[in-house]
């Protein structure tokens, strides 16, 4: 994708002008990547704690599928992948200046993202009703903390996405300036990426 070369005639999607050569991308994008570095470390704390505890007490975990509902979560994983592709389609649309496409894909992303959160809430309620609660040994502790904070990130992402959609409807984005779409997109894909890891280590291993 050629946005670096494609946007030659606009200011906003290019690195700030008149300064020393920096990272070679505009501020908001650089800022988001730097921020994602801190998110990586946050999940390192949670996932790292999980790995360490699991190495210390391997038998505190049940085999995959015994407690957790893998098919349901597989559907949820699929939902999140879908929302990633709709997001990136929205980004591609506005790159081409297609505002209508942007709105359409953004709404799809918001809905699918909210769907993911909904399924997760349903999963939680079901698990708690059968007695698998956060205080249920190391298994429950790590499960709820990791997936809960991921869900929290998805929720924050959905809220940001609603804001971006609202701005899209007010016509704030164009081929020349769609920083908000790209930056929120980066965050959204990152959250998807974390889920890919979590799905494997929490549900499948």
């Amino acid at each position, binding site marked *: 994708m050629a946005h670096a070369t494609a946007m030659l005639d606009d200011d906003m999607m290019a690195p*700030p002008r008149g*300064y020393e050569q920096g990272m070679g991308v505009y*501020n908001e994008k650089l800022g988001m990547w*730097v921020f994602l570095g801190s998110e990586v470390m946050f999940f390192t704390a*949670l996932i790292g704690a999980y790995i360490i505890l699991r190495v210390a007490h391997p038998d505190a975990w049940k085999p995959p599928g015994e407690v957790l509902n893998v098919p349901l979560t597989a559907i949820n994983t699929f939902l999140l992948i879908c929302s990633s592709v709709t997001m990136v389609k929205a980004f591609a649309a506005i790159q081409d200046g297609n505002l209508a496409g942007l709105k359409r894909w953004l709404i799809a992303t918001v809905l699918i993202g909210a769907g993911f959160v909904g399924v997760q809430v349903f999963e939680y309620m079901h698990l708690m009703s059968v007695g698998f609660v956060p205080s249920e040994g190391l298994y429950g502790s790590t499960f*709820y*903390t990791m997936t809960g904070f991921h869900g929290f990130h998805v929720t924050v992402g959905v809220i940001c996405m609603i804001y971006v959609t609202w701005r899209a409807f007010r016509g704030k984005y164009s081929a020349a300036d769609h920083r908000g779409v790209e930056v929120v997109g980066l965050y959204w894909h990152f959250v998807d990426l974390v889920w890919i890891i979590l799905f494997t280590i929490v549900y499948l291993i």
Partner: protein
Amino acid sequence: MATITAPTAGHIATGEAHAHEMSFLRKYIFSTDHKIIGIQFLIMSLVFLLVGGLLAMVIRWQLGFPGQAMPGGGVLPDTMAPDGIVLPEFYNALVTMHGTFMVFFAIMPLLVGVFGNYLIPLKIGAPDMAFPRINMASFWIAVPAGIMMIAGFVVEGGHAAAGWTAYAPLSERADLTGVSMGQILWCISLIILGLSSILGSFNYITTVINLRAPGMHWFRLPLSIWALFVTAILVLLAMPILSGAIIMLLFDQTLGTHFFGPAQGGQPLLWQHLFWFFGHPEVYILILPAMGFASDIIANGSRKPVFGYASMVFAILAIAVLGWGVWGHHMFMSGMNPTLGTSFMISTMLIAVPSAIKVFNWLGTIWGGSVRFHVPMLHAVAFVSMFIIGGLSGIFMASTPVDIYIHDTYFIVAHLHYVLFGGSLFAIFAAISYWYPKMFGRMMNPFWAKVHFVITFIAYNGVFFPMHQLGLQGHMRRIFDPNEYEFLQHLQGINTFISISAFVLFAAQFIFAINFIASWFVGAKAPDNPWDDNGLEWTVASPPPHGNFATIPRVFRGPYEYSSPLVEEDFLPQNRELPPQPAASAAHT
């Protein structure tokens, strides 16, 4: 004296060059101007420094005069100090909150929040931060965190009492300390503060990478900016580890999870690993900016270029990288795998090398100089000499067998105050007195500033040097009354001496406080460049206008061209364009 700003390439990107009419609220309270935010952080963190200092005075009263009624202590409620006599549970809360306030709410915001904000855009030639509104949010998120942390004192059960390190399971089981709400507030407050620090630091990082004025390439950055930049990276990567760990601790307390409690397989050592994986980078967060300020000020005071600029930069980077691999040195006695202990010992020893490089380069900078003893220089030199003591005592603790004996004794307390007070706080005093004229447009009174310096320097050593001796006699830290132990009873004299010195030290700080506040209103008007410094911030008015520079400055050289043969004066601002000169004649100007 003011230098002509060379015409610049490019145009002003975001900041408005002219301050237009803004409401008081927008201008001073919810301001997005990095300079105002820096000053807001300054006021907030000085207040917390005072709070931390007050708590220390109560600690010292109890240790110096155990069991006696504290003068004025009668105002404290009976749950803390009935009739002014400190209770053991209150003592534990005091120590915990003294450490917490000093580390998280005083020194860290002073170094990073205040000077990161104030100096970065000015020194790199940017009109403001990359994200001014997020910058404002970073301050206004820190405020409720601070209020929450203070509120812990008045909730039922008292404030958190598990040490600033909050070792589990003591911190996660209310039945072990009798504290529940206090510890929960401690957790939530630090999570919020962590968010504030992260918002601040990713702003700094983006700004330094993307908004350096033309000509300000990496190896022309002032060392203070290098240090703040690297520190911001450490904050960005270390704070979320603490947040994650604290969230697990909070869940252990409130949701009944089992991360750190052994009842269902949790690991107390996991908390320590996570805490110190954050904690050791944290202590370098607390020293790197201090080192940066010291470099700037020592070069200025000596009227000489920094000795070995490049090795100074590489030393900063080396400290930041190696700092991630030494956290286990806090856990030698924790029951950690001893083989792991050996690797941590070796890496800890190695991390002394970049610090040594910095010390030697400071000495080299002074060597051959023409030293002006202005107040910032005095504090900066005190910083170097005290950091040497603190750093060298670190070597004792790094040696695992010696640490068996001195771990968790006052030797550690001595070390940490030599690096944190002798190091960070002296550098903060240096930096405040150095940049005060720029911040407020007025000079601090140099006479009273020197009086403050002399008393502080002497009293400070009177407080903390004897603590080495206490530690060597086996005096444990965090104990309410050492006289419970026979082998410590003969140390009461030293403890009393330390306490009296501490009261003098505390009293001396009011000289600073009064000087600070009074100079704001009645200090002599500051010129643009009172210290004959080369940095970009000194080429604009004191205080600088909204948007900092009329046009983005152009930078022609590094920040430490003092006593350059190219010019008459002994300084050469970074943005002064010199007419091209034949190299030969340049030598004897």
